[in-house]
């Protein structure tokens, strides 16, 4: 379970996250929506320990992320993260991209790591591209590669940071399809997204972010069919 209490985050003078309280249970899919710059992505970085926080706590399976004694490298193994920019490692082939972390972080043998990598690349539908360098893959394929890379660490949680927003429109579908597949398999996911269709169909709950706070959080159905907050209504009427 991911438990966030009164999270405060500043960038210099800028107060980006202003008291976030949030709980994500095992097996749940949470979509986070809201205007750009509302702090959604920063929240994911904080959960992964890639950003320092200035107040509150984030605990993942009982471990406090920002505690000094926490082994972040170990904790991060339980959380896979997929970024907006497809950042596959350009100097490694697809299978090397996926096999690297199991090998050097989890100390798997080379053949084991390759096995895992193969399995995950098949999982995301890249079985034809095992020995291809990222530069020869489309944006959508690179993003699926990034998903496979994260899955290879056998994570308990997957964090998606606007995984489709840098893609050409015709490539968005294949990535969403892969994410949908993961959700159906019971993966616990937090998806920061601008894809309202995905948020509505796939997620259990949806959180609407506004100006560093969670303005409203509810089931997907309630948020989209009858939002309580005026701001939520306004936002949804704009993006629809």
């Amino acid at each position, binding site marked *: 379970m991911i438990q966030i209490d009164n999270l405060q985050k500043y960038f210099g003078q800028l107060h980006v996250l202003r008291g976030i309280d949030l709980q994500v249970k095992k097996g749940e899919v949470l979509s986070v929506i809201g205007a750009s710059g509302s702090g959604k992505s920063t929240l994911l*970085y904080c959960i*992964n320990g*890639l950003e320092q926080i200035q107040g509150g706590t984030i605990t993942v399976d009982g471990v406090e992320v920002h505690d000094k004694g926490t082994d972040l*490298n*170990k*904790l*991060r*193994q339980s*959380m*896979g*993260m997929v*970024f907006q*920019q497809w*950042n596959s*490692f*350009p*100097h490694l082939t697809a299978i090397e991209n996926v096999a*690297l*972390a199991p090998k*050097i*972080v989890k100390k798997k043998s080379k053949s084991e790591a390759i096995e895992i990598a193969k399995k995950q690349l098949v999982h995301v539908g890249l079985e034809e591209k095992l020995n291809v*360098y*990222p*530069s020869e893959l489309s944006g959508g394929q690179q993003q699926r590669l*990034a998903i496979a*890379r*994260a899955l290879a*660490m056998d994570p308990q949680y997957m964090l998606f940071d606007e995984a489709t927003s840098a893609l050409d429109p015709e490539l968005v579908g294949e990535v969403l399809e892969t994410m949908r597949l993961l959700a159906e398999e019971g993966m616990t996911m937090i998806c920061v997204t601008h894809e309202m269709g995905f948020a509505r169909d796939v997620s259990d709950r949806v959180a609407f972010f506004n100006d560093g706070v969670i303005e409203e959080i509810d089931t997907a159905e309630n948020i989209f069919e009858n939002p309580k907050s005026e701001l939520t209504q306004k936002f949804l009427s704009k993006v629809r």
Partner: protein
Amino acid sequence: MFDYNFHWRPVLKSLPDLLEASLVTLQVAVLSMIIGIVIGLFLSVLKLKARGPLKWFATCWIELARNTPALFQLFFFGFGLGALGIHLTPFFIVLAGLSFNNAGYLAENFRGGFNAIPETQLKAARSLGMTLWHAYTRILVPQVLRIVYYPMTNQFVWAVLMSSLGMLVGFRELSGETQFFASKTYRIFEYFAAAAIIYYIMVKLILFISKLLATRLFRY
């Protein structure tokens, strides 16, 4: 106009010695590159990430290496350290001088390379649970080395050319050997012309091999 008689025979006779000495040249240049790359990487990371004395140290090294003559640097490792009671052999004077210089110049190249890599690469590596050391050695540095491959080749050529300063500190690489024979036979022009040709061929070979290697190394 030409009342000078060229004598090439002695040069031909000592050609094997000159060629052997050019291997010494290559050897010291290669070693100084390896040392220079390792130190240069550390200096560039220090300059980018560190604060306080460590950053200051890196900056001093880089600026001194880049803003003083290579010969001056050689003198420092020769006469300068000698005054402190540290007496290096000619080989180590040249090696130290070239390594110091390579590290300084390469550090600036590496810095540019690191800056050219998107910040998200580091984030992605860390999000997979990699330690900072792994993220650098497995993800960032290999990419940097590719970006700076051609500047690195140029630096290597430069190291080969600079190693000729060895003749001023008594090191018998190609120039030192040339100098030795030239002063023994007084055929200065002939010997130095031969050395020039050997250097020229060496440099061309290095550039050629570097291009060949690039097609093998970088398939992406």
